[in-house]
């Protein structure tokens, strides 16, 4: 496969994964903002998903309409859903011969949906939840179409590597910001509604209820989002899947490059596997997450160098 094509597939997939993350986060936070506006702030969402500085966040963090407009339809925001979908579709457009026609049409329709005037109007004056739901569904259509139609070859491997790397980065970022925001520590039980909304925003609420019996506790939440391999957004799950798809590339690339990147992924995966809440507490949560994040970015860079370099 052409390096440029692999690069495009990888980024197409990363942007779609980020879109899904942003949309779910927006939907639940919007619901939360309608619930208890005195305590509610958009700050954590903006910290994770935008490049705004503290002052700019201060200006908009209490206005749901402004945040939604900025995060969904603003063309100048490099992390808005609009920009993500435009970029994802642009990537897909240049690799149409490597994805199925169904998948291309799905992304193309998503793009035209984003640019529809009616969408903007609904978001601003009608019901934002309906709009967010529609967009989430269009994203699910993308996941389903990928699953059902894409050949199990190199293309899908690069897409999945991008998807799970993006998901791992998001999970780490979200945890870091949320724990900082609530000044949570691993010992004291915390305000439950805010944790409930947090779990919902990462689609982890039901799993949590079934796994833990003792109510909402920071340590359990951390346990689930880092270690629970049955929870599809957990860090460990993402790393396992990333490694699985990367291993399938073994025959495609000169052995040394493959081994180098595989080593990095395996090392990180082992680190998570042989960590627990106690060892995290020893180094401090923020430091721990920062180190993980650094390793994830290093993997991304290694992929770029070894697999995607073409110019």
């Amino acid at each position, binding site marked *: *496969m*052409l*390096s*440029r*094509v*692999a690069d495009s597939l990888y980024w197409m997939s990363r942007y779609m994964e980020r879109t899904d993350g942003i949309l779910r986060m927006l939907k639940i936070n919007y619901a939360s903002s309608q619930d208890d506006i005195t305590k509610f702030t958009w700050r954590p969402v903006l910290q994770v998903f935008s490049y705004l500085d503290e002052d700019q966040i201060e200006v908009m963090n209490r206005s749901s309409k402004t945040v939604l407009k900025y995060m969904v339809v603003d*063309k100048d925001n490099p992390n808005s859903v609009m920009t993500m979908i435009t970029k994802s579709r*642009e990537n897909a*457009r*240049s*690799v*149409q*011969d490597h994805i199925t*026609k169904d998948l*291309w*049409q799905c992304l*193309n*329709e998503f793009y*035209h949906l984003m640019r529809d005037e009616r969408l903007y109007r609904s978001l601003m004056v009608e019901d934002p939840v309906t709009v967010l739901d529609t967009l989430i569904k269009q994203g699910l259509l993308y996941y389903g179409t990928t699953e059902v139609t894409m050949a199990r070859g*190199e293309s899908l491997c*690069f897409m999945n590597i991008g998807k799970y790397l993006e998901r791992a980065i998001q999970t780490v970022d979200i945890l870091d910001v949320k724990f900082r925001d609530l000044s949570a520590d691993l010992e004291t039980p915390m305000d439950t509604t805010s944790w409930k909304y947090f779990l919902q925003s990462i689609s982890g609420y039901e799993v949590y209820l079934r796994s833990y019996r003792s109510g909402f506790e920071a340590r359990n939440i951390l346990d689930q989002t880092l270690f629970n391999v049955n929870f599809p957004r957990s860090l460990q799950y993402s790393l396992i899947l990333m490694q699985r798809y990367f291993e399938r*590339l073994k025959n*495609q*690339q*000169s052995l040394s490059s493959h081994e180098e990147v595989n080593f990095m992924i395996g090392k990180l995966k082992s680190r998570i596997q042989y960590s627990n809440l106690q060892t995290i507490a020893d180094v401090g949560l923020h430091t721990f997450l920062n180190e993980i994040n650094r390793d994830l970015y290093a993997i991304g860079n290694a992929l770029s160098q070894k*697999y*995607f370099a*073409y*110019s």
Partner: protein
Amino acid sequence: MKDTTIFEHYPVSPQTWDEMYEKGYVRTPYSGVSNFLNQIPVDELNKKEELAKKLFMSQGVTFTVYSSGEGIEKIFPFDIIPRIITASEWDIIERGIKQRLKALNLFLKDVYNDQFILKDGIVPMELIYSCPHYLREMHGLKVPFDIYVHIAGIDLIRDHDGTFYILEDNLRTPSGVSYMIENREITKRIFPDLIPQNNVRSVTEYPSILFKNLVSLSPRQVSNPTVVLLTPGIYNSAYFEHTTLARLMGVELVEGRDLVVDNHRVYMKTTSGLQQVDVIYRRVDDDFLDPLVFNPTSMLGVSGLMSAYRKGNVAIVNAVGNGVADDKAIYTYVPEMIKYYLNEDPLLKNVPTYQLGNADEYKHVMTNINKMVIKKTNGSGGYGMLMGHAASEKEIDEYKSEVEKDPRQFIAQPTISLSTAPCYINGKIQPRRIDLRPFALCGPKGIEIVPGGLTRVALREGSLVVNSSQGGGSKDTWVLSV
């Protein structure tokens, strides 16, 4: 059978061949379509037109117009009423194009090698050497099977008595074939059952014939040669066509930056290292192919590509330097070429053409300028034309002074009225001018033409210019089997 419904007030222009009507009556091949359209209420037709637009949009059958930093998706206008070519008309077209293409291929081989046709004085030598598309770099270069034109899009028009004429030969990188394929797909969706009922021949073979031909050109004797389609990239207005063809043939779609030349061999940069490329179907113009040989500022090409080509390590489709054969001044000599190389009479006529480089012809054209169309010999896309019958005194004067600078670069043709076909525009059926571009494929086993083509429509009322860049649209083109 006289129509009374939506075809009422269908004004056929005098001295014009209408594809559907003859003296107020529907021609037999069109009766199926006419009956069908008459059964459908107008709002139903509007819905079908809407559906066609939606299908083009969601499938991404679009080109992007960039303005103020963002891309706007446009669809190439599509008229829902098909254009029909009967089996006997197609027979003439098919034989005529095959004959012409055979001669043009021989001509290209000749001008880039022995130049018999120049030495025998059939085609004037100065015409060749003054053509900007004549490339010295191609001299003495051996191309596989002596085929230069692998893909040709030859434009035909019909005069007032229905005779087909060759308007121009496109032998470089003719585009539009994806619309031949997509228009048919759309017709299948908007008019269920109509195609089988009318015995329309299929156009789906095109990609497999092309692929088979491309594979056969591989210089390396390997069972699975690497064929790639070289595109200028996503900003090119024909990008949709490039992706469609790549997908339908199952070949890699590459950009110049994906390729590299090492030791006179072309490679593509893949995730598993460099992979040798055997055949390049390029949709990049000659001038941009290799910055070391042609335009040095080109970002679209591959440095060293021509050296690999000269060594015979890679096949390029269409061959480089074909522009000398579809130059509009050379066009005049194609009937003589057919006579010279094949000893046959041309089956399809040329439109009479005057060389403005010739003083007598120049004078004739200027005295009859109201009946003439003047074109640049190397122009395309309908740009830089003067339509004598519609131009003002001022426009004519300005154009004249442009011609004076270098008359060799201009030709003139008498205005041909072009046939009309019914189009569904704003809820009414109206006549519009059309042409026809069938796509011919030339391989080691001979020339094949998929029964169909691109019918271009001048959507503006009264306009004679069908180019998409000048407000043209297209129609599905049916070739009937009986």
